[in-house]
């Protein structure tokens, strides 16, 4: 993959209205680092938990910490709303979502996760590739109709960019000037298929021009660039200028999921060559060089991350199964006689009550 200078390297940053956001303070930079360490540690722990049988599966995001933490950090949870896929743990963490409730989806407790999406400002975890992108457009159009200033941010990847719904979403958003930030993590791989076999023309961002939509193609492994680009995109959409697309170039360093075997489609040498520098290590060196943080701070951040992950593990392990009645009770707001009868049969035959 090309190494992209940072930020706004691709195109059209100039299309975005408004001034650049304030530079990040030293405290904010350290906060970003702490978030990235927490996410990295939770991510690697979740893989271990899967191997230990604590959770049945997980979709790692190793290598995407900067893209996820940086974009999630830019969200204003008092008014914005985020529409994730199934690989946005770093976004959820940066937004302050309850991580036991978030990780419960990987514990197979409940598909959408146990967190309250309305309170968290994070839509339920979405397993359909590209499935929630149109939802963001609808939610954003609702902001326009209600004359509110919230912005919807929706996540998808290079693989999802092949889906028809992505085209429909971008076209709808652009026609309606809906306040949407389309945040694309181009991580090089859709399970086993590389971007060059997925994205004709080589760039999702380039497609935005066809919708008359500004796009930023950024170095997704530079957390500062990601925060700045996302903030500018939010400001642009919030000001009533319509949607923006950000293509954050990153690399999926791990497998697609804990069931995947990347050795069948890429070699370790290729991984080393293509992945570039680890975004966390890169940020660490930058903070050190700029005198923003020292080794003591890094050690402190790691210790905090370990404590946090230990707390999450305990929370996950303490989660029991949801009561089986929820299968029936949560289908509708107004249940049906057939569902009530099935629930009664289930109770009688399965719980012997």
């Amino acid at each position, binding site marked *: 993959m090309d190494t992209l200078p940072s930020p706004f390297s691709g195109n059209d940053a100039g299309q975005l209205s408004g001034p650049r956001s304030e530079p990040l303070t030293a405290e904010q930079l350290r906060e970003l680092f702490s978030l990235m360490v927490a996410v990295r540690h939770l991510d690697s722990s979740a893989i271990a938990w899967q191997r230990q049988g604590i959770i049945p599966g997980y979709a790692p995001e190793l290598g995407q910490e900067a893209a996820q933490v940086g974009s999630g950090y830019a969200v204003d949870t008092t008014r914005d709303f985020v529409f994730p896929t199934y690989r946005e743990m770093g976004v959820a963490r940066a937004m302050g979502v309850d991580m036991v409730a978030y990780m419960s989806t990987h514990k197979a407790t409940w598909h959408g996760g146990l967190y309250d999406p309305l309170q968290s400002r994070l839509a339920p975890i979405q397993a*359909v590739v590209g*499935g929630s992108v*149109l*939802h963001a*457009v*609808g939610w954003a*159009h609702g902001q326009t*109709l209600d004359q509110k200033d919230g912005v919807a941010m929706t996540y998808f990847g290079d693989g999802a960019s092949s889906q028809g719904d992505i085209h*429909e979403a971008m*076209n709808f958003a652009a026609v309606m000037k809906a306040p949407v930030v389309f945040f694309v993590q181009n991580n090089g791989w859709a399970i086993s298929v590389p971007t060059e076999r997925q994205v004709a023309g080589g760039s999702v961002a380039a497609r935005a021009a066809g919708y008359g939509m500004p796009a930023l193609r950024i170095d997704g492994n530079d957390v500062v660039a990601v925060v700045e680009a996302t903030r500018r995109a939010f400001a642009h959409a919030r000001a009533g200028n319509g949607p923006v697309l950000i293509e954050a170039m990153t690399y999926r360093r791990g497998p697609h999921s804990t069931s995947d075997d990347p050795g069948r489609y890429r070699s370790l040498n290729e991984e080393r060559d293509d992945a570039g520098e680890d975004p966390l290590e890169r940020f660490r060196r930058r903070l050190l060089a700029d005198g923003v943080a020292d080794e003591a701070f890094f050690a402190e951040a790691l210790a905090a991350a370990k404590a946090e992950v230990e707390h999450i593990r305990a929370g996950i392990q303490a989660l029991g199964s949801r009561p089986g009645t929820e299968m029936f009770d949560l289908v509708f707001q107004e249940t049906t006689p057939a569902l009530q009868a099935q629930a009664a049969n289930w109770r009688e035959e399965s719980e012997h009550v």
Partner: protein
Amino acid sequence: MSNAILESGAAMADGTPRRGVEQLSMQQALNLALDEVLAANPKALVFGEDCGRLGGVFRVTDGLQAKYGTGRVFDTPLAESGILGMSVGLAMAGFHPIPEVQFDGFAYPAINQIVCQIARMNYRSRGTMPMPITLRVPSFGGIRAPEHHGESLEALFAHVPGLKVVSPSNPHEAYHLLKYAAARPDPVVFMEPKSRYWQKGEVDFDSADPAGSPAGAKVMRAGRHLTLVAWGAMVARCLQVAELAAEDGIDIEVLDLRWLKPIDEAALAASVRKTRRAVVVHEAPLTSGLGAEVAQLITQACFDTLKAPVERVTGFDVPYPSGDLEDEYIPNIDRILFGIQRVLEYKRG
């Protein structure tokens, strides 16, 4: 189309529900129901392809954009998945979307959003994000239309956990069922029998349903010898059949199922316990059609009293045919009468 409805509708700009009885077409009744829903619920939105300025290809949304503005009644780009996916987001934001899919066959491009998103969001979000979406789908055949304009998708929708499905059979039902569906907190697929849009009938505004709640089935004609179960455009045909059969002394009950999910099992049982014979009529193909479900529900509830197996008179297991052949496909009076005859003449082995 007649502008009478729009003129009188304009006089009711405060959205006050009407009183008394009027002769209206189903298209007019639906238009009036939407008008009242928009007036009563500021969060209700009507949108889809050509729903705004044109008033819909069947004019069901005629005049609504002029009355409620382009924010509440609007045209979307031509993409059904987009329309339905957008509806999910609007529902999450607290709106009550009433999207239209222009023709039944165009629900297929949106099936992912309907099945995987609309139907499941309440469940996935543990009840925190209800989907009060009323999806209007002009449905069924009978108008000599091109391919994909005459499909009967009720079994497909009814099979999906999380969806409710309803189909009105006449203007009165259309008016009351649409108002009822649009007040529900769950997604309802509202299948409008497009061949009945222009037939007029009496709409009694004062009474949603003299026979009970608009949530269940409804006896459209009481009879003693056999129950015809139907919905949508087939109800009117079954009523015709009942009149013909009456000439031969056969007294047929016609049950308008109305709700295809949930199915009113109690009404089916009550009717067939009385008549002891049943024929289900639908336009959709036979195999795995809703008739099979209805037949099973009747058999389960009435096995001891049934005098014959439940018969099905349906479309065939073929792609919906071109206009020249659609009268061969849709159950006609003769085929329904043959079905009735088979049941009446059934002899136990």
